[in-house]
């Protein structure tokens, strides 16, 4: 009988007894104590990668993008691959914080803050690549923004590249605002827990004088709901618009209507894999296993399988359409994709994104951080290859065999890609060091007994 009810009841959010006090201790401790040796080791590695990134950024600025492997048929190489990859990573953050919030999924509270932070950092990494790729990054802002100028010429608003500018600017701003809005009550808690004057001052300023007043909570909660509602269509629009960069071109392999949903599903897929990759390390590093439980990992893995099937369907549908269309060029591109010079990249992508995640159907693997870890790592690899395959295999064989070419990355390409991980991971490490990585205010509200037993007072 009791077994029966435990199957039907939602899984408990915490694996051990918690209350507001112990939660605060667990969540704020990493920001209040001296960093552990593990943290220092981690940041020295990611910091070195960041130094590499900055050095290669300067090198690219000085010499130009001729240092990259891009060439005439393959005009978009790793730069745009990395851009789409990082934007995709960001999408899980918004999905977790906004869509799961609207769906009233209480388990999201454990990972939402971390995923939102990841979104912001991933979008920062993403934006750098197309700006660098423009060749003269210091002028990019004048090309893309409709600012009043002496010539009276303005950008062409029909261009998907300009849509991208608006989509990314909006996405970055809204993600930062949503993240900060969620942080305000926790910054107030950090302020009130601070014993040191400087901490008290800095968190005090950042918390904007939050006092936990219920007259404020009423507006705050409404605004949070609105942000979730605004972010949900936004996140779908951003990767759809990124896919328009490809879909609105006439190139076979790019010119397809399946791209927007295919890209959005792929983004959520890669983003969840990245959240899982980092959250597993973080919960271990900061002893948060009772707040971010195996149940959380299980739920995330279910979304990974679902989205894996979606991208798998998209891969199959691309081939079907190429065959069914009867278009010679379209057919050629896909045969070339699976059997041409970049076949190894295509099959890596297919293995990592469609075959390997099927292991997550096994419950034991879904719930085990160690067993699922290689799978989510491979998904990250596979999703990077997906963008590489889309960009490079479509470009290197275009309509005229005379202009066919081959793409080989240079050491600058490789260094910038590794370096962008340095930037991303350094920001993540600084975040978990200085800001509460789990939303304390939200999680206190879902602790058993935190809410009134009659569900409110309606008289």
């Amino acid at each position, binding site marked *: 009988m009791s077994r029966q009810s435990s199957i039907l009841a939602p899984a408990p959010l915490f694996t051990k007894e918690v209350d507001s006090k112990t939660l605060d201790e667990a969540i704020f401790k990493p920001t209040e104590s001296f960093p552990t040796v593990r943290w220092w080791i981690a940041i020295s590695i990611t910091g070195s990668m960041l130094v590499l990134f900055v050095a290669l950024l300067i090198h690219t600025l000085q010499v130009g993008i001729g240092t990259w492997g891009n060439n005439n048929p393959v005009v978009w190489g790793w730069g745009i691959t990395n851009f789409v990859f990082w934007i995709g990573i960001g999408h899980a953050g918004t999905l977790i914080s906004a869509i799961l919030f609207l769906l009233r999924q209480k388990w999201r509270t454990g990972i939402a803050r971390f995923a939102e932070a990841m979104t912001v950092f991933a979008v920062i990494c993403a934006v750098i690549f197309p700006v660098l790729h423009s060749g003269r990054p210091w002028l990019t802002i004048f090309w893309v923004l409709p600012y009043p100028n002496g010539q009276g010429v303005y950008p062409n608003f029909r261009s998907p590249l300009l849509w991208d500018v608006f989509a990314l600017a909006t996405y970055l701003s809204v993600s930062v605002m949503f993240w900060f809005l969620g942080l305000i009550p926790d910054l107030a808690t950090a302020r009130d827990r601070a014993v040191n004057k400087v901490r008290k001052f800095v968190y005090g300023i950042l918390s904007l004088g939050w006092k*936990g007043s*219920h007259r404020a909570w009423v507006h705050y909660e409404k605004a949070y709901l609105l942000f979730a509602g605004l972010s949900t269509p936004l996140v779908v629009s951003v990767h759809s618009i990124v896919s328009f960069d490809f879909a609105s071109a006439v190139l076979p392999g790019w010119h397809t209507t399946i791209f927007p949903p295919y890209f959005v599903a792929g983004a959520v897929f890669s983003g969840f894999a990245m959240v899982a990759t980092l959250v597993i390390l973080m919960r271990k590093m900061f002893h948060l296993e009772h707040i971010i439980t195996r149940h959380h990992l299980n739920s995330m893995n279910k979304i990974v399988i679902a989205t894996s099937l979606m991208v798998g369907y998209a891969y199959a549908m691309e081939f079907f359409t190429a065959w069914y269309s009867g278009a010679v060029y379209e057919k050629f591109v896909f045969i070339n994709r699976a059997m041409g010079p970049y076949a190894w990249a295509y099959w890596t992508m297919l293995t990592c994104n469609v075959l390997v995640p099927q292991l997550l159907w096994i419950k034991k693997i879904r719930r085990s951080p160690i067993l699922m870890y290689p799978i989510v790592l491979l998904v990250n690899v596979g999703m990077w290859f997906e963008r590489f395959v889309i960009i490079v295999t479509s470009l290197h064989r275009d309509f005229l065999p005379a202009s066919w070419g081959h793409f080989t990355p240079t050491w600058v390409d490789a260094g910038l890609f590794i370096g962008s991980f340095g930037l991303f991971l350094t920001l993540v490490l600084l975040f978990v060091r200085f800001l509460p990585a789990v939303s304390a205010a939200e999680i206190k509200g879902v602790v058993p007994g935190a809410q009134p037993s009659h569900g409110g007072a309606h008289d």
Partner: protein
Amino acid sequence: MIESGQKKVGLVGMFDDPNTLIAAAKKVRDSGHRAWDCHTPYPVHGLEQAMGLKDSPIPTITIIAAFTGFVSAVVLTGGLNAVHYPLRVGGKPLFSWQAFVPIYFELFILFAALATLVSVVVYCKLLRWHSPLHDSGLMKEVTGDRLAIVLESADEEYIEQTCRPLLEAAGCTDIRHLFENTDDEPTI
């Protein structure tokens, strides 16, 4: 404890159980006392009804801002590409609104989000760092794990005669004075 350089500005009842807090909030609401508030570490559901608070006007502001963003985008794209410097691309009409839809959508969202954030700052009375709650040392407990009802009044007799019995009747066992530092040193 009240020290020199501090002055009483109200009464605070501390609670640990959200049910008692809600019952107390209803009593205070019905007593007609005006300057009061509940302070909690997380939003307690149903407290707004118990306090008799009105719904937040933020959604109205958000939707107005959203459509302002939409109209701005229509004017921006059409005005620049069709009127100010007509730009013919691919033989399409100058005002090819279909191609501008992504810009309409993004500015719709951007304006709405900015207005929502500004509304939060205004309606939640943020950017006001000074508060007697800090002076009384209450915030430490309130942002941690305790729930509080704060009744503000400068009239000491009124506090003792009316407010204290109100909180006591609601079952509050931890009642304290709310005080404010009268010297000028700012506290966060």
